Structure formats: structure tokens, C-alpha cells
């Protein structure tokens, strides 16, 4: 019985491993001086195809997009700010290490697992100036992470178009942030 359950679990995890997905587990805004920084935790999974491509030296570019809007009832929401950042995950064949590049910063990991863990944690991303916010107004925040397919090599782009493994887009994570102004 227990064995059956394990088998089932193994099957599920195997199936899980075969489909790529990005998931936002949590996100929060934290005030720092006169701005807000974003912390977020993702769940990052690569399918075998994607992992193989990564190990063959194809860099994966992830786009993290964040938006704060002020909702309006009868009209389009008023956009307060929209920012995005790039995270590039690549494999360095000579040193057999994984590199995670954020803007001007590079982290090096010996295993893919570590690299993925690093990728899964977003820390101190400055997204919002306090001056943009008005007191008493309701705000909504949204976060999304996706694989930037246009940065893939061209043949892969074509392949990625209809492929489940390459279609890595998280659902939009929405929450109502509490701003202490």
C-alpha cells in the first residue's frame, strides 16, 4: 500500500519533471527608505527538453514583470508603475558551472539545483518609489515571471511556439499591497 503510494508519487513527480512550469509562491513589498522593494519566491521546474537545452549551452532568459495599478471602476485601471527585470540562467561548459546573471551581478553554482534555488528567490528588487503613491488610494499589484522566448535561438523559437515544455509563463500573481505612508 505504502509502496503503491510511493510509486504514484514518483509517477507524479516524474510527470512534473517532464513539464516546465513557473509558479509564484509568494510576493511581498517591503518599504526601504523612500522606496519599496519586492521579495518573491518562485517554484521553478524545467522539463527534460529544457534542461538538455540548458546543458548544451543555451541560455534561458527569464523576464520578471511587476505592475502596480490604481483600480478604477468604470475605466481602465490607472497604471502607477510597470517595471521588469531580466534573469539569465546559463551553463558554463569550461568550468562546468551554472551562472545566474542579474543585471550586473553574476552568481555561480556548481549544480543546477542550486542555480534553480537561487533563481527561485527574488530579493530586494526596487520596484516602487514612495512618491508615486497617494495616501488613501486603493492599489493592486501584479507579478509575473516568464521565459523570454524571443531570446532563444531562432530554430528553437519556432519549435517553442507550439511546445508545452518551452511555454513557461507563470500565472499573474495579484495581491492588494498595504502601503504604510
Amino acid at each position, binding site marked *: 500500500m505504502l509502496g503503491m503510494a510511493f510509486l504514484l508519487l514518483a509517477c507524479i513527480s516524474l510527470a512534473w519533471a517532464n513539464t516546465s512550469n513557473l509558479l509564484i509562491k509568494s510576493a511581498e513589498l517591503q518599504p526601504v527608505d523612500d522606496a519599496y522593494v519586492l521579495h518573491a519566491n518562485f517554484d521553478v521546474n524545467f522539463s527534460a527538453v529544457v534542461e538538455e537545452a540548458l546543458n548544451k549551452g543555451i541560455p534561458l532568459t527569464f523576464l520578471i514583470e511587476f505592475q502596480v495599478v490604481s483600480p478604477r471602476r468604470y475605466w481602465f485601471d490607472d497604471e502607477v508603475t510597470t517595471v521588469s527585470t531580466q534573469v539569465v540562467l546559463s551553463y558554463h561548459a569550461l568550468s562546468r558551472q551554472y551562472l545566474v546573471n542579474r543585471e550586473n551581478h553574476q552568481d555561480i553554482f556548481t549544480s543546477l539545483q542550486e542555480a534553480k534555488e537561487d533563481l527561485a528567490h527574488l530579493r530586494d528588487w526596487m520596484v516602487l518609489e514612495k512618491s508615486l503613491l497617494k495616501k488613501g488610494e486603493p492599489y493592486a499589484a501584479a507579478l509575473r515571471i516568464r521565459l523570454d522566448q524571443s531570446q532563444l535561438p531562432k530554430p528553437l523559437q*519556432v519549435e517553442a511556439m507550439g511546445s508545452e515544455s518551452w511555454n513557461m509563463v507563470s500565472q499573474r500573481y495579484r495581491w492588494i499591497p498595504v502601503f504604510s505612508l
Partner: protein
Amino acid sequence: MRYVVFLSAALGAVLLYLLSQASANTAASSNHYTILLALNIGLATALFFLVGFQLWRLYRQMQRKVMGSKLTLRLLGAFALMAIIPGLIVYSVSVNFLTRSIESWFNVKVEAALEGGLKLGQNALDIMLTDIKQKGESMALSLAFQPSMTQLAVLNDLRDKSGVQDAVLLTLQGRILAFSSSDPTSFLPELPSIPQLRQARQHIYGTIEPILGKGLYLRVLAPVTMTEFGGETRILQLLQPVPKTLSDTAESVQEVYQDYQELSLSRKSLQEVFALTLTLVLMLAMLSAISIAFVVSRRLTAPLGVLAEGTRAIARGDYGTMLPVHGSDELGILVQSFNSMTTQLGEATEAADRNRASVEGARTYLETILAHLSSGVLALNDKGELRTHNVAASHILGVSLGHFTDRHFSSLADEFPALRDFASSILTQFEGAKEGEWQEQMDIVTAQGNRVVLLRGTRLPYSADSGFLLVFDDITAMVQAQRDAAWGEVARRLAHEIKNPLTPIQLSAERLEHRLASKLTGADAEMLSRATATIVAQVSAMKTMVNEFSEYARAPALNLDEVDLSRLINDVLGLYEPADVRLHVGLQPDLPLVLGDATMLRQVLHNLLQNAQDALEGKTDAEIAFDAVVQGDTVKLSVQDNGDGFPLEIISRAFEPYMTTKRHGTGLGLAIVKKIVEEHKGTIRIENREQGGASVVVTLPYIKTPVRDQAGSPKSRRQTDAAARSAVNKKSAVNE
């Protein structure tokens, strides 16, 4: 439609160019590659629908049998074939070639070589790393026994000796204790990450690290167990850049290896991309070609449609439409020729119409003339069939010729035996005659009695309408008039010549008797007196006869006046009282007045009654019927007897002088009667009655409205009378 086609073709060309650019150029247009691909697919689909729409339209046109649509289809097929066949060949060859060449990029040897190169680089780096590690170990050992005061100097010393670029002594937390560098530009060392520090706590740790902006470095972290502070552990970090040449080579090998891997990974998709691009190129090219073929073939066949329209117009008889001419090519010239042909046709038709109208007019004119001609006209064709006849012909022959048209002329003789001689004589003449005219006079028997006709025939000149033409006149009246005139002349001369000696003969005979009567006696005297009496009597009889002759010849002028026929008839009948004949008189009461000469008319009545009485001489149960009735606009007088009637041989010539059945008689009675009646514009007819006996019928026109009731003045009436009289006079003059 044309613009849509050319626009889409141009758009397709632009898109294809961009697509091929995108396929070739890796970095710049990679973002737009998918968009371009999608656009191209969209365009191909649009073109596909366009071609489909065009085909559907063509199909509809063919169903409606629009002129030129079939030709359009054939031209389209030809054009499309010309485009599709080479296109497909090029396409299949290129796809095949492409697939093979892509396959040929990848082979095991190349892959092994690349991997080997990469391994070589890795090994070289590993060897260098091992070397640095050893140096780091020995340096860590040396440092372990140094007091902290001299650490920096020793570190410098050791670094110098080992030839490492940077050497840093760190606490376990990563705080810098001492730093030595051969690079004068470096103020701050590249610090290890926390996990690295943690790992280096136990034993020596070395990695190859690509440092952002600086290139490839070898980093070694060695734990230093300080003897001085109770075994506190420090970390020594050695940082050595990989020699430029080696790092460049290794990096390039890695790059190529990665490129190769990338390619081999996406080999299939690469083939797909190229195949897709090629297919798109093919489809766009083909569809554009077909669309353009549509437009071109339509352009080529458009003048045909115009021509067809023109032909239809001509078929309808509309010569007025001019076709629009465009282009100076052969089709344009064709349309121009068609236009000029239409014009000429129109003119020709107009001329033909005019001609026909004039011919029609001429024919009508001819027919009118023929119809109003008093001569009978017959036209026969070569086979002797009746082609044309006029009213007068029917009238003269007393036969309706209408249903003999297109039948052989002899059929006339078959149906009317009385006309056998007429028909056969004509046919004989025509068969015999070669050219020129012939003329013949013959008698024919018709319903109106014997007629004398003068035939003139001629053969029509040889042509489509060749045949025979026959013109004939009823000359009965003329012949009669001639005969009458001749008889008048004879009578006048005879009277003149005979009258002269009669008086001397009578006088001489009387003188003889007078002179000799006294001298002779007895039988001689009696003989003389008898002879002279005979002479005198005969002479006086001859005188009477001569007087009659002269009377016939004299043609006295009529003294026309209104005559009351009833009174006249009663007068005559009163004088005439036969002894042994029963007289039946049937007079219509109130007979109208007749314009005539009372004396003459009295003579006519007298003559007729006398004739009847003579015919009944010696007959028992003799009776005479005298009737006078109004018939039409004439008064009909008939005298009928039950005698022997007229002998058949003379009935047709009964009105000629000296035609008599009486033993004594001049034979002038009926002749004079006829003359008088005709001078009164009347007619006289004799016939034998079926039950025996003769019948003479005289008709006289009566005065339609009495003078008193007439609107016009009596004077005009007189004038008419005078005119009539003078006309009569003229006629009698002709007769003399």
C-alpha cells in the same frame, strides 16, 4: 481585384525578403522572426482565399456561359502550370538539398573533436588549478606558523614567490585580513561567495570562475589553521587569471561547442524552419503567380467578351453598337476590324432595306397597274404553270383564277371545258414559239355568252423569272361595233343605190299601164294591169325596205326626256291587240321614270311585241307575257313567248342585221332595237326558255331621284342631260 492581387504579391515579396533576412541574420531580427512567420502564413492564407474566390467567380461565370470564361480557364491553367511545375521542382530539390546539407553538418567526428577540444581546455585548466592548489596548500602551511603581525609581509613574500596574482587572507566570515596583489590597479579583491567560504573551511577548494568583465579566473580557497590564536581558522584565497591565450582559445572552443550543441539540439527544428520558410516562399510565389495569371488571362480574354457582346448585338440586328477599343495589339486591331465590319454591315443592311422597299414599291406599283388594267394578264412559268394573273383576266374569262395559281394551265381546261380551246391554243402557241410575240383572236364561251378575245403572247427572256406572258383583251364590243359600223355603211349605200332607180321604175310602170291600158283589151289588159300592179307593189315594198335600211343606218339623234314607262307601255299595248294570242301583262305599279326618247322606246316595244307575235304565227295556244319590274337601279322589261325560240346557230348573232328566221323581213328589227337600247345605256339579252319559247330582256336605267327632289338646280340637271346627249351623239358618230 487586379490591385488586390498586385498588392498582395508585392507584400508577399517584401515579407519573403524580410523572412529570408531573418533566417540569415541571427541576432537583430530574431525578435521579429515569429511575427514575420505569422504574417507570411497569414498572407499565404489570404492569397489562398483570394485564389479560391477567383476560381469560384470563374466557375460562376462558366456556369452562366459568359463568353471568354473557358478561354480564361485554359490560359489560367497554362500559366499556372508554367509557374507551378518549375516551382515545385525547385522546391522539392531545395528541400531535399537543404535537409541533406543540414544533416551533413552533424557527424560524430566533428562532435567528438569539439568535445575533445573542450575537454582539453578543461584539463588544462584543471592542471593549472591543481598547481595553484598545491601552491595554496604550501602557502597555507607557511602562513599557519606566522604571527599575525607579519602576515601581510609574509603573504606578499609568498605570493611573489609563487607567482600568483592575488592572495587574500580572510576570516571565516569573509572579512579581509591581508591582501596582496601583483596587479597595481586592483584595490579590492574578488571575494568568494558564502557557500564557497563554507566549503573551504574543511579542506582546500578550487574552482574555475568566469568573472564578469574580467575573464576566466582560477580561484583556490585553502583553510589556514592559525597556531597563534588557539587554532582559529583563516581562509587563504588565491586568484590567478587564466593566461589570455589559453582562456581565449578555451572560450572560443566552448563557444563553438555550444553553438554546435545548440544546432544539433535544434537540428530538427532548423530543418523545419527552413522547410517552412521554403514552403511559404513556394506558396506565396505560386499563389501570387496564379492570382496574377488570373488577372493576365482575364485581361487577355476581356476583348473576347466585348467581341462576343458585339456579335450578339449584330445577331439581334443591332448594327449601332461600337465596341470600345483598347490597346494597339492584335486584339485591339481585331476589335477595330469588327467595328468597321459592323459599320459596313449596317450600311449594307440599310441599303438592302432601301432596295427592298423600292422593289416592293415597284412591285406594288406594278400590281396596282395590273389590277387596274382592263386587259387580262396571265404569266406562266417554263413548266406551263400559272404564276400571275390580274383581276381583269378572271373577269374576262369569267373564272376565278386564284386557285389555279401554281397549277398547270391545262387544269383550267379540265375544270372549265368551255375554256379548253383557249387553254390548249395558248399552250400550243407557247410550246411552239421561240422568241417574239404572237397574236391570235379567238372566241370563247363564257357565262356572259360568246366573247371575242384578242390574245397576245410573248416569251419572257431567259432568267429566273422566265416563262410566258399572255395579254388578252375582250374585244367583243369592239368587234360588234365594227360590224355594226360596217352594216350601217352597207345599209346606207344600199338604200342610196337602190332608192334612186325605184321611183323611175314605179313611174315607168304606171306610165306603161296608163298608156297601154286603153290599147289593150281582154286578157292582155288584165295582164298588164296585174304586172304593173305587181311592179308598183314590189317597188313600194322595196322602198319600205330601203327606208328601214336607211333608218338603221341613219342613227337618229335621241331626243331625251323623262319618260313614264307605264304610260308608254299601256299606249303600245292598247294599239296592239292580237287576235289569237293571249297576252299576260305584269306591270309593277309606279314604275320610275326613265330618261329616254319616247318615240324610239315605243318602236322598241313595238318591235319586240311584233317579233313575239311573228314567232307565234300558226301556233295554237299562243301566249305572250310582258313584264316590267324594277331590278336594282334599272327597270327590267321582258317579253316572253311560247314559240319555237331562236335557232341555236343564230342566237349569238341575233342582233346582227339580216339575221332573221322569218320568210319576209329585213332582219333589221332586233338590230335596230339593240341600237336604240344601247343608246339609252341599257342592255338587251335574248335567250331560249327552258320550257320552250324565246325571252327578250331589256334593262333601262331609271332616274334615281326625281328632278323636283334633287338638291341641285334644274339647270345643272339639264347640263348633265346635254352632256349625256352629246356623248350619245359622239358614239353614234363613231358608229357611222
